[in-house]
Each structure stands twice: as C-alpha cells, then as structure tokens.
C-alpha cells in the first residue's frame, strides 16, 4: 500500500473534521432522533403550515381531534370553556369572500406570553415549542392578555379524567402544545394534522422548519406563505398559505 505523505495528512484531516473536538462538541451536528434521556435542542424547530384554501367550511375535524387527544372537554359554557384550537371565519369586507382557517398557539420565536410571565411558567423549549409549566403557573392570566392570537385558555373548574397526554388542572393557563407528547415519542405528526389528512383535506402539515428535506420546509420554500400579524415581528412557527 502506497500512500504518500500528503495523501496521509489529507485523510487525517477529513477524519478529524467529522470526529468530536471534545466530548459533546462536534464539528458537524447531525439532527438524528434523540433518545428518551437526551434533552431537546435548537437543531429542530417544530412548526405547522396551514393551507387556508384547503380548509373546509363547517369542518371541525382538527378541533375535535385536538380536544380528544388532550382531554379538553366542554362544560357547556362556551365563554369559559378551554379552547386549544379554533376554526376562525374571516370575511373580506369589500368582496364578501369568506375564508375558514384554524388558529392555535403560533409558537412564536419571540413569544409575548413568555416575556410577561411573572413566574417563568410560560416558556419556550429549545426546539421552539411554547408551553406552560403548570407546576409553577399561578393562574394570573397575564399571558392570555399578552397573546395577540387569543390562543390561551384558563381552566376555571376542577378537571377529572385527564388524558395521559396532557396533564391539566384548575387554576392554570393552557394552550396548544404542538402535541409535545408525540414529538417526544419521535412521532412526526400532530392530532390536528392527522385528523385533517384523514378527512382528505391535508390543510395542516407538521414538521421541522429547520430540516430542508422536511415536507413543511419544502412547501414553505416552493410557495408564498405568511404569518398572522407579521407586523409584530414574532417569527411564528405556524405559517399560513392561501390567505387572501
């Protein structure tokens, strides 16, 4: 085997580049599925893409699926019932064109709810999911006032028979968790996206905004999309297409 001195050094350099510089510090981090014992990182940013043109008027599949998955039940009092996702109807005042679209927590990069929380209960995970730590939430509802999307709800009454997916109880604020229990299991979907696909609409896509090969990133790269209230510069993780 004849390897020249120059070739030998070259092979060594290539090998070293891919190898760890120090334990836990790699030159090239690969976004691989993490194990149960690994913390989430900012290598991913989870988000949703909602195609408003595919959202059917009168359909509530995503709302029902979300509330079933997370054990959000109604007390028959719509004013105070918790709502993680809602179907909003918007009408163009000039043309009269009516559009339906689901609105939930927009999982902002700079979430106002986190800014105002006095206890640190409202927080953003490293992978971009905005959550409420109900262990430290005092139920002041400041985050509800700060959220421009009205995405959060307060639980007014005792809760029984909670879902195993989402612990929830009286006196705390809650909102869409982007199905964090599924994300942590390594599943690449949310209850709303699954339900929408099952209805045949495929108006909601879930995925990693930072992975250029993901369906959501490719869809965002190929067609124009918008944020709700882009003027607030919140850089939302939930994006919309086909908004008129």
């Amino acid at each position: 085997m004849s390897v020249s001195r120059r070739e030998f050094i070259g092979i060594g350099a290539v090998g070293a580049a891919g190898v760890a510089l120090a334990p836990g510090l790699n030159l090239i981090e690969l976004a691989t599925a993490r194990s149960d014992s690994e913390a989430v990182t900012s290598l991913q940013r989870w988000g949703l893409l909602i195609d408003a043109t595919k959202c059917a008027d009168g359909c509530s599949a995503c709302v029902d699926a979300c509330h079933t998955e997370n054990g959000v039940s109604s007390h028959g009092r719509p004013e105070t019932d918790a709502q993680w996702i809602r179907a909003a109807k918007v009408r163009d005042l000039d043309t009269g064109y009516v559009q339906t679209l689901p609105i939930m927590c927009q999982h902002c990069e700079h979430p106002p709810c986190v800014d105002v929380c006095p206890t640190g209960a409202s927080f953003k995970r490293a992978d971009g999911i905005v959550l409420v730590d109900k262990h430290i939430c005092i139920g002041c509802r400041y985050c509800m006032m700060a959220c421009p999307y009205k995405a959060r709800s307060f639980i007014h009454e005792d809760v029984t028979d909670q879902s195993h997916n989402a612990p929830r109880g009286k006196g705390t604020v809650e909102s869409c968790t982007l199905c964090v229990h599924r994300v942590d299991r390594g599943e690449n979907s949310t209850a709303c996206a699954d339900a929408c696909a099952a209805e045949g609409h495929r108006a909601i896509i879930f995925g990693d905004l930072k992975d250029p090969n993901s369906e959501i990133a490719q869809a965002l790269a190929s067609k124009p999309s918008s944020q709700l209230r882009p003027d607030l510069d919140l850089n939302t993780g939930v994006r919309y297409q086909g908004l008129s």
Partner: protein
Amino acid sequence: MKKMAALISSRTVGTPVSAAFVAALTVLLSLGLLSPVLAEDSRVPMPNVTIHNGDKCVEDTEVMRRSHMEFILHQRDRTVHEGIRTKQHSLKNCINCHADPQTQSVLGEDGFCQSCHVYASVKMDCFGCHSSKAEEQIGQRDPESSMTRSLQRPQSTRVWEPRVRIHGRDQ
C-alpha cells in the same frame, strides 16, 4: 404482655410503694385492662400498602419512602422543560405499577398513594392535573406473588419498645 410483665418485675427491687404499684400494674396487665394502649394493634388506622405489579421498585423501598417526592420533583422539570421522558422516576411509571387492579387508580381509600398520604396527613397536588389511572389496563397478579408490605413495622427503623417509667425510682 408477658414480656412487659417481665420487664416491669425485673425492676422491682426497692421500696414497698413501688412494689405495690408494680403488683397493681401486673394485675391490670394480666386482666387485659391496659391492652388497648399497649397492644400490637394501633388505635390509628395504618396504611396497608399492597404492591400488585412488579417485584422491585426503581429504588430501594426505604429510599423511595423517604425521597419519592424529590425524585418526582426533579424529573418533572426535566420532562417539561427539556423533553426528557425517561421512565425511572416518572410519575406515569409510578402510577402504571402501583395502580390498584380493581380501580386502575392510585387514589381511593386503599389506593397506593392516597392511603399513605391520608395517614401521614400530607396533601398531594399531583392529581389536580395528572391522571391517577394506569395508562394500560393492569391485571390482578397472582396473590402469592404480590407483595404486601405493612407499614406497621418498618424494617429499617428501630423497633419501638414501650418504656415504663416507675415513679419514685428514676435512674
């Protein structure tokens, strides 16, 4: 009872007064009149912890009794904020193992968590938000193999022995 009487009589060397007292006490003991106070059965209802699933907990029983709340506290922060969902110290794992096969729950009069917490008079906040039910239906294990641990005689702590103080003869 006999042990008590022996314990008392072993100290009966002394004044006639104390001898008379001890004699009276011995008579009372032999009649069983003092038994509600000194008997094995406590007046306080004791939790009877029956473990239906699994032969071994994630830590030693003594460690769990003393520190289970700290394990759950640390784990909850790691789970909520960092997405770490290892099973060892997770509340879900506790419930899945310790739920009663009849009720599928750790609450209820004989529930694993509730019976002990009622006894210790310590309020639990967990189940205001978390489900108290096992994730999957758990079946009744063979009664031979299920472990019943009574908290009446903890293994590691000193066995409680009644001390009888005889007035007038203090050490």
